[in-house]
């Protein structure tokens, strides 16, 4: 039992509690709160790198297993949250004088700690506890702007769906426990053929549906657009990235043998549905947060494709795509926040004529949109390329690859509605764009990552290879 494995969670929780405690005495200033959080995240990343020699063997009585793939996702998650901090710094909605930065960043860190625990949980009970840590903190974060009615509505919706899906999950887990007498994933991975089929199917059904809700897979996605629209944009960015990465982390631990459980066709259909419905619904959106919400639903459909393909190649492609998605999606949100701060709107209109006002920002947005569409030489293409490759290896799944290909074309239409607005429409104002340095830096880094990892993907691929040997 080595606490080194839990170091990142411990650091983040300690920082979170410190911030919450400080806040109870007097308001913590923005710089201090974000500074402590950023330092904690950096320390967390370093500590993950520090235990790099650890194997994936379960520890803490089989409760956690910090394998290389979990560490990969943990670093990814913390990088994402760092970016979310940068996005929050100058976000309009957070600038009121009574905004409690200490509570905000404390909750964000706690949520992150939950997510980290989720990626290395090796027991269904711990999965549940971690999931609840994430959920409860996320409910509050979504509704953090109490005076904003939409945010409150979103929080309530998120809470109701979250509670409901947790219920389903617990129900599924209880059946599993009844069948197997254990909730340990290691032991559950080798299902006993003597287990009766119906309860097993029921358990798998409830667990999958529960995760379907958490990951917003179609047809369990209805809550996502409303919540994404209502939440403060940095939190939307957080929700569109972090829980998904962690969710796939759990799936990789819990269901790598979906073929043996005869779940593959079911998951394949889920994947095709998710990408198709997400993309088709995104076509009609004017509000950019809703558009990105549907886009992220569709993107998870693509990732699920890699999970469906399974095997080393398939799971690697999941990690590759999640890393790609982190860069390009955060970049896209950074653009929306930058434009939203300037135009005071979250609709497409804000992007009108942006090319004339700030060519670098317009080009950066174009890069993210191209990458999300899956056009080379950007990292999204590398991700899609490896997903397609993984799927095409199994002859029975060629239809899924074709579906994803058609979906990429459909997604072009809405991703490029932004590009059209930026380059083809005349600007409605002539003033130059103003952007805070933190936001510009975050945007620049995301753009740089999207381009560099697209043109020279070898480093990323090597990292993934080491994460999934």
């Amino acid at each position, binding site marked *: 039992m080595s606490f080194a494995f839990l170091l990142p969670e411990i650091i983040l929780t300690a920082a979170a509690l410190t911030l919450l405690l400080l806040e109870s005495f007097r308001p913590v200033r923005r710089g201090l709160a974000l500074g402590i959080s950023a330092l904690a995240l950096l320390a967390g990343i370093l500590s993950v790198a520090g235990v790099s020699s650890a194997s994936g063997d379960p520890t803490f009585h089989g409760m956690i297993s910090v394998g290389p793939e979990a560490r990969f996702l943990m670093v990814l998650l913390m990088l994402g949250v760092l970016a979310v901090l940068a996005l929050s710094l100058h976000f309009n909605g957070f600038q009121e004088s009574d905004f409690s930065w200490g509570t905000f960043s404390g909750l964000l860190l706690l949520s992150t700690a939950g997510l980290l625990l989720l990626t290395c949980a090796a027991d269904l009970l711990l999965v549940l506890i971690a999931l609840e840590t994430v959920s409860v903190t996320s409910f509050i974060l979504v509704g953090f702007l109490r005076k904003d009615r939409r945010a409150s509505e979103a929080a309530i919706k998120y809470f109701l769906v979250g509670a409901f899906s947790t219920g389903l999950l617990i129900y599924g887990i209880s059946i599993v426990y009844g069948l197997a007498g254990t909730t340990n994933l290691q032991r559950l991975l080798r299902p006993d053929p003597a287990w009766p089929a119906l309860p097993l199917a029921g358990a798998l059904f409830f667990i999958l549906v529960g995760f379907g809700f958490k990951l917003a897979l179609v047809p369990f996605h209805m809550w996502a657009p409303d919540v994404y629209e209502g939440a403060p944009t940095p939190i939307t960015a957080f929700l569109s990235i972090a829980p998904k990465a962690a969710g796939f982390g759990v799936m990789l631990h819990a269901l790598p043998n979906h073929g043996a459980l005869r779940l593959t066709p079911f998951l394949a259909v889920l994947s095709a549905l998710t990408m198709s419905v997400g993309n088709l619904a995104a076509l009609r959106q004017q509000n950019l947060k809703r558009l990105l919400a549907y886009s992220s639903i569709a993107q998870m459909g693509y990732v699920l494709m890699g999970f469906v393909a399974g095997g080393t190649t398939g799971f690697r492609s999941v990690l590759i795509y999640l890393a790609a998605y982190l860069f390009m999606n955060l970049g896209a949100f950074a653009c929306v926040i930058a434009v939203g701060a300037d135009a005071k709107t979250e609709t497409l209109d804000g992007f009108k004529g942006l090319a004339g006002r700030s060519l670098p920002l317009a080009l950066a947005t174009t890069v993210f949109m*191209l990458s999300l569409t899956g056009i080379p030489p950007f990292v999204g293409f590398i991700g899609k*390329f490896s997903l397609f490759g993984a799927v095409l290896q199994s002859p029975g799944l060629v239809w899924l690859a074709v579906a994803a290909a058609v979906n*990429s074309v459909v997604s072009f239409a809405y991703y490029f509605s932004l590009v059209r607005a930026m380059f083809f429409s005349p600007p409605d104002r002539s003033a130059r764009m103003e952007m805070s340095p933190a936001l510009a830096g975050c945007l620049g880094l995301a753009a740089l990552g999207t381009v560099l990892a697209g043109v020279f993907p*070898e480093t990323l691929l*090597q990292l993934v290879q080491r994460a999934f040997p």
Partner: protein
Amino acid sequence: MSLSLIVFLPLLGAFVMLLLPNERKGLIRGLAVFFAAAALAVSLYAYTAHNGGTAEMQLVERHSWIPTFGIHYYLGVDGLSMPLILLTTVLSLISLIASFGIETRVKEYFFWFLMLETGMLGVFVALDLFLFYVFWELTLVPMYFLIGVWGGPKKEYAAVKFFLYTLSGSVFMLLGILALYFAGNPRTFDMLQLAQQSSTFIGPRFIWVFLALYVGFAVKIPAFPFHTWLPLAHVEAPTAVSVILAGVLLKMGTYGILRVSYAILPEATRWFMPILILIAFVNIVYGAYCAMNQRDIKRMVAYSSVNHMGYCLLGMAALTGSNASAGMTGAVLQMVNHGIITGSLFLLVGVLYDQAHTRNIDDFGGLGAKLPVFTAFMTIQAMASLGLPGLAGFISEFLCFLGAFGQKDYLLWVSLSVIGIVVTAAFFLKLIKDVFLGPFNRRWEGLRDMSARELLTTAPLVALTILIGVYPAFLIQMMDATLANLIRHVTGG
């Protein structure tokens, strides 16, 4: 190194351009021309270094790029790609000079234009399928902007339609490329290695792979029934962009078929030949009739491209016949000739439109006496396009038909395709009659003949048209060995 220089000099220029202030239009134009000229100069050097007597890949550059996937940065030229590289560098330089009239958002325009040039050149030199696909897609975005921002009244619709068509094709091409990768043993994206393994790519599965690749290529050519984006895009695009679109971009499709489909999937290629002949027939005849029906000169030239690419396909379809060599030579020569001839026709239409602000044939009449130089150029190029002996178009069209008549089982379709030549002659002659002959329309009293810059852009192309018409050997020698090798490879003979 020379190939990398050719490909990336324009891209370097594009990024240098971004650093310049918007207001320095002269400097921006000058730099764009400088980088395109540098690429042309290096491509001329490559031409002298290239030995047409062998089918070997030359000036090869091969570096490991993404070892995890076995992807290489792999460039090379042979007799098939060399003429197209020259065509691209020449037409790009000329189009950039022809773009000096662009006054809005000059910096962005030249940025996208140079990036487009890099994409096109990359397609013609890439020998790794992954790299090929990256360059292929790299042409997509700049073209989208060039049409969508600087185009005519329906520019946005045209740009979106162009993008949607091409992207739909290319995602299937990507699936086809991946399928080839997994079929290889050992797995590789190396086109030459895959071509060596081509005898193992047999069976219905590879028919599907061939079709997936074909959709991607056919959209670009554009082969019937994927051609409907073309007239719109050509008409809406600014003059110089139409030149590149017709002159180079369409050739990427036929080049891709020859380089990838023919070489790597010979069995499926042979299976496809009868269908290709039919498609060529439809392209030729349907394209010609559509062109005949247009009153807008630019639309007419655009549809004539559908018709001319049909000749090219017909020549390519001669592969399994008895005159394969003539057909294939004709097809590649037709790619170059169509680029030169149609490119110059678009430039000339642009000259007229810039002054008259109309392209409707019925608005003109009797311009011959008023604009002698313009009339001469336009007439020469129209004649070349309709296949008058002594000019470039005749040689390649003749060879295409000569080759196709070697397909003894499909003589009916080849014979019917000849109708296309007659119709082409009819509409070009009518165009000349309606615009340049007859009574002079007083409305055009103020028209001037061609300016120095317009002469500078069109005269070289007219000269090339005549040169190739009289002495095509310098091009044919360049590609002979490569094509003979390709024919041997595909037919196994």
